[in-house]
């Protein structure tokens, strides 16, 4: 394999994985520091990427800096491999790095994600790369970088607890449902990226290395494997995750995160796995839900009627 890839004929040649070697070194150094200081946001000189800021440039730069010819890449958005931005990012790496890609969680050595952590337990040796829009968990409490940096330096996280407690006072419970702040290894409060809080427990003591890239905000942070990750809460209001009243309509899975799909304009809806690979694997193993196609053939009208809530 050659380290250079020609895109669009002779006009321009790009390095393996698009980034030049000096940029990769800079990002790699930031990644090593990030792993050594779990949860701390390492500033890095984020580059302009050929996709827009806010569309995964941080995750793409992290992936481009770690990926090698032996890697197998999986890209998901909203838990699905076939969402347009996931398709676009996967195609980018196939083009500039010529790597193998997969939709199977267990086959991937690198999984780049936006907004979800796969349902299947990750393994040692796997790397989960998160795309992060706003890396600073304190940003919406204090807009200034100069101030939030001081707060992290002094471990001054009172403001965050005040905010969560105000939720409880006003609504009876914490009203944060995604990007729910966590404390990493007892030191840094960290933004897990806009994953639903349902996924927070998967970050705790994971076997996999978790890397976070924020391109527009120019920050990289990390959680090494086997690291304590605690969702912030209060003794009288312990952290709890979302639960769903019904199993996945396609594979019957319970205890997974579900997407609500609108079936018609009369309020008909169904709930299906957000993790498409998990759902497909279960169905391949013979699991069935209320509306999975083979059942639906038998009694089409009846099952559709049941989907209406």
């Amino acid at each position, binding site marked *: 394999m050659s380290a250079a890839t020609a895109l669009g004929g002779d006009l321009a040649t790009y390095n393996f994985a698009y980034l030049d070697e000096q940029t990769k070194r800079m990002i790699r150094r930031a990644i090593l520091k990030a792993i050594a200081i779990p949860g701390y946001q390492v500033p890095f000189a984020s580059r302009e990427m050929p996709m*827009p800021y806010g569309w995964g440039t941080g995750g793409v730069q992290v992936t481009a800096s770690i990926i090698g010819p032996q890697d197998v890449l999986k890209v998901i958005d909203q*838990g699905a491999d076939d*969402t347009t931005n996931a398709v676009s990012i996967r195609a980018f790496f196939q083009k500039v790095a010529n790597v193998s890609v997969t939709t199977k969680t267990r086959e991937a050595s690198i999984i780049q994600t936006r907004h*979800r952590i796969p349902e299947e337990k990750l393994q040692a040796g796997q790397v989960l790369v998160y795309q992060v829009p706003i890396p600073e968990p304190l940003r919406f409490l204090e807009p200034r970088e100069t101030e939030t940096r001081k707060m992290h330096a002094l471990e001054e996280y009172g403001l965050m607890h005040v905010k969560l407690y105000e939720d409880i006072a006003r609504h009876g419970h914490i009203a944060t*449902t995604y990007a729910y702040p966590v404390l990493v290894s007892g030191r840094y409060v960290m933004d897990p990226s806009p994953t639903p809080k*349902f996924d927070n427990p998967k970050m705790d003591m994971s076997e996999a290395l978790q890397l976070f890239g924020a391109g527009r905000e120019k920050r990289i942070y990390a959680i090494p494997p086997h690291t304590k990750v605690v969702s912030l809460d209060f003794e009288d209001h312990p952290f709890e995750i979302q639960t769903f009243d019904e199993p996945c309509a396609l594979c019957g899975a319970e205890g997974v995160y579900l997407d609500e799909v609108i079936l018609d304009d009369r309020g008909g809806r169904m709930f299906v796995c957000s993790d498409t690979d998990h759902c497909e694997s279960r169905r391949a193993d013979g699991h069935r839900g209320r*509306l999975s196609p083979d059942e639906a053939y038998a009694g089409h009208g009846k099952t559709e009627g049941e989907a209406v809530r």
Partner: protein
Amino acid sequence: MYVAVKGGEAAIANAHKMLADRRRGDRSLPSITVEQLVEQLALAVDRVMAEASLYAPELAALAVKQARGDMIEAIFLLRAYRTTLPRFGASQPVETGEMIAERRVSATYKDLPGGQVLGPTFDYTHRLLDPALVGDEAVEAAPARESEGEPLTRVADILAQEDLIERAYAGDPTEMPQEPSGDLTREPMEFPMARDLRLQALARGDEGFLLALGYSTQRGYGRTHPFAGEIRIGEVEVEVDVPELGFAVSLGRIRVTECQMVNQFAGSAKLPPQFTRGYGLVFGQSERKAMAMALVDRSLRAGELGEDRVAPAQDEEFVISHADNVQATGFVEHLKLPHYVDFQAELDLVRRMRAEFEARQRSESDTQEAAE
């Protein structure tokens, strides 16, 4: 039966085909050439070069064409190309005092050595649509100026002779820092910023954003009492030092617009009353951008000059963090990406809170009925 929506790849490919089709438009018309854009939409090309921070007229014109005239998209295209280019070194600072100016005006002096040179300006044109431009009528050549080819004295230097304006470099001029200025495209950003990086951020910043901020200072949100000391547009030489040769080598000439604002300053505990400077320098011909940049540069120096920082244009973190239109458009437009996983979490919360609210109301009205 439910079949999940598939086919993202095919959808993307089709969308790109449609984009290419719309970009080309009516096939019976000739395709516009990059040379035509460079020559006839020169100011669009200049803006793309300025905010992409890459001086390359043909590539900027290609970007304008590829972006169907969407300026921020064109800037983005050129920047994404720039970022892959290797750096060979840093040039010497360009000497705008040596500029062969095509335009040079000063609002602070009626006349000055070299005179007021209007050059190719929209100023004093009456903004009436010109039907003659619909066709391809012959245009006569511009008259040559008598003094063309001679450098012009800088207005700031005239004021400096009287020591009435702050020095461009506050310290001893023989101790000017020799290291190349910083580069925020290669180093992580950190606040507070040194002025070199701040000026770089402003030079790359969105013209409209800087225009609005500069305007706000004129309307009283952090007033700086500006005078347009001088605006000049023309070509300057770009030189690099080659240590092996022991002298600077010229790489060529680029067109730039420079604006020096002269601002009133009452003095502080440390500094005597004097005029201060706001500086703007932009690739190509862009007076609006250079002037807005100079206004905002001066506003951002509030802290350094001991002025109260009360207005948005004086707030470095606010201005610099939001001046980049490629970053801004990316993040604003990313809202169209799917967010249904998070929306599901919010739906669940609202439904739950709604149920709790209704239960509370029911129990309240039950209690009331029981009481009656």
